[in-house]
């Protein structure tokens, strides 16, 4: 799997918020095998760059950091935050979130496309958090995005894939763009389902961070993602309308005699 020319072997991207402690976060990352972690700047930053201590901890993990613009409600906020992230983490990668309203945390797709265009022009490699809408996805690709991150369900809702059909169409429509299901997953079977649809990777945070045992849950997701990926490549069956016996009809005892 390649994101903007970077080859990655783990198909799990992990968020770093809401864990019981940084130590448990570190262990969960290890158990997940994730090579990319997302970090929120907006909420932790403040005016004095007060998050340094936590960010140093993240940097010390030696992973690739995907900073995000979580909590940004306007194009301007998102663009400013992306530039700040670039300075802090020395990366061109940015997970772009432009949120419409605080209640649903639904992406503002109009602002998203605009911010993606500006940031791509500024040299960023944009990972947009979007819906499964095809037209929006088209616009994002046109704006320069070479990875798309559609939601499974609203952020933190643990509902899984709300619109599996829509996600499947998106996959069919963009066979060559890496697609990552970002947000809304609750349990490993949700992640497996995303991978079975042919998605390239899954991004998680709350489902792991707020599990009773985040380290075990991280591992469980990693296994599910591997299983889903393997199943997808193994050409699974399509659902059928009738039963098909799984036992071959050979050598059945003849009871008529």
């Amino acid at each position, binding site marked *: 799997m390649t994101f903007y020319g970077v080859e990655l072997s783990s198909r799990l991207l992990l968020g770093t918020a809401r864990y*019981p*402690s*940084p*130590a*448990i976060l*570190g262990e969960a990352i290890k158990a997940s095998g994730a090579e990319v972690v997302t970090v929120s700047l907006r*909420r*932790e*930053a*403040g*005016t*004095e*760059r*007060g*998050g*340094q*201590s*936590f960010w140093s*901890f993240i940097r010390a993990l030696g992973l690739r950091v995907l900073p995000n613009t979580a909590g940004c409600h306007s194009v301007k906020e998102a663009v400013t935050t992306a530039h700040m992230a670039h300075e802090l983490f020395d990366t061109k990668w940015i997970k772009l979130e432009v949120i419409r309203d605080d209640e649903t945390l639904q992406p503002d797709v109009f602002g998203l496309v605009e911010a993606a265009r500006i940031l791509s022009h500024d040299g960023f490699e944009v990972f947009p958090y979007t819906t499964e809408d095809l037209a929006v996805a088209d616009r994002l690709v046109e704006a320069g995005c070479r990875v798309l991150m559609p939601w499974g369900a609203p952020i*933190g809702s643990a509902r899984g894939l709300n619109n599996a059909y829509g996600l499947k169409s998106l996959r069919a429509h963009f066979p060559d763009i890496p697609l990552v299901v970002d947000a809304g997953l609750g349990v490993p079977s949700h992640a497996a389902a995303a991978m079975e649809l042919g998605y390239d990777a899954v991004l998680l945070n709350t489902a792991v961070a707020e599990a*009773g045992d985040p380290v075990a849950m991280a591992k469980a997701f990693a296994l599910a993602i591997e299983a889903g990926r393997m199943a997808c490549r193994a050409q699974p069956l399509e659902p059928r309308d009738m039963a098909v016996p799984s036992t071959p009809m050979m050598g059945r005892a003849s009871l008529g005699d």
Partner: protein
Amino acid sequence: MSQSSVIVVGAGVAGLVSALELAERGLRVEVVERGPALGAHSCSWKAGGMLAPWCERATTEPEIATLGAPSIEWWEQHFPGTVSLGSLVVAPPRDGGELSRFAKRTERFEWVDATRIEELEPDLAGRFRRALYFPDEAHLDPRRALAAVAERLTELGVPIRFGVDFSADTSDADVIVDCRGLAARDALHDLRGVRGEMLVIRTAELELSRPVRLLHPRLPLYIVPREDGVFMVGATMIESEGRGGVSVRSAVELLNAAYALHPAFGEAEILELAADLRPAFPDNLPTVRRAGRTFYVNGMFRHGFLLAPALAKQVADALLMEASDADYRQRRSA
């Protein structure tokens, strides 16, 4: 027993409780504090003051509850203002799942229905259909509790000197108990600050007898009643060491929590909005570390009042064990 002299650095909850424990066990103690007055430079001053080991159990590692449970008795013995009426956990109707989830992760509580909620907190009548009641928990007003501990220290002849910039290099104390909180990061390099913001309001329209925690998927907050119609609402938790004032967003969240618990809080007067940094280690668990003659008591994170007595006891046990060993060796060689 040999009378070694102990200097406790820092007059927050860790320092004062350690000093009291050591003094009560017969050691010669002195407290120094860099701030000009009680609470001026202590994050304990902005604490919630909940002694809630079993509520904490739902979101923290078991060690917090194990260390914290005995502290309720310690505070009851040392601060008469300790209120042992338990605590209540509620959730807005649409977030009922949060309540079950919270319950699954802890113990020592009862499920209570609307009738029982009304008996416990008449002013919350009709607002919640079910809640978790933790009968064995307690709470206190941190500022009054610190003052009471300071007063008790004075009675025992323990001096507390404010405005002192302590330097271990020039101190001839036999033992240093370093309770400087985040300021101790010059020695404890893995210490970090976790920002918290709190609100203090006053209203005569409502009365609560015990802390109420409001579960919410995004913003779990709590309200602790103080005396005279005063309530403390806390607290945000942000991985930041920014020392600026409370952000508008955090203020909105804290105010919303109060309003969600009861709309009558809408009429309350805002007395204080404050922010500070909690000292925490990477595992968010407290430790007593020893280096030469210095004990570092730190990393109490969100649980200063809950954990201080347990850590103070660890320091006192270690010191007295050494003292009696030394005493024994001295007598044998005599």
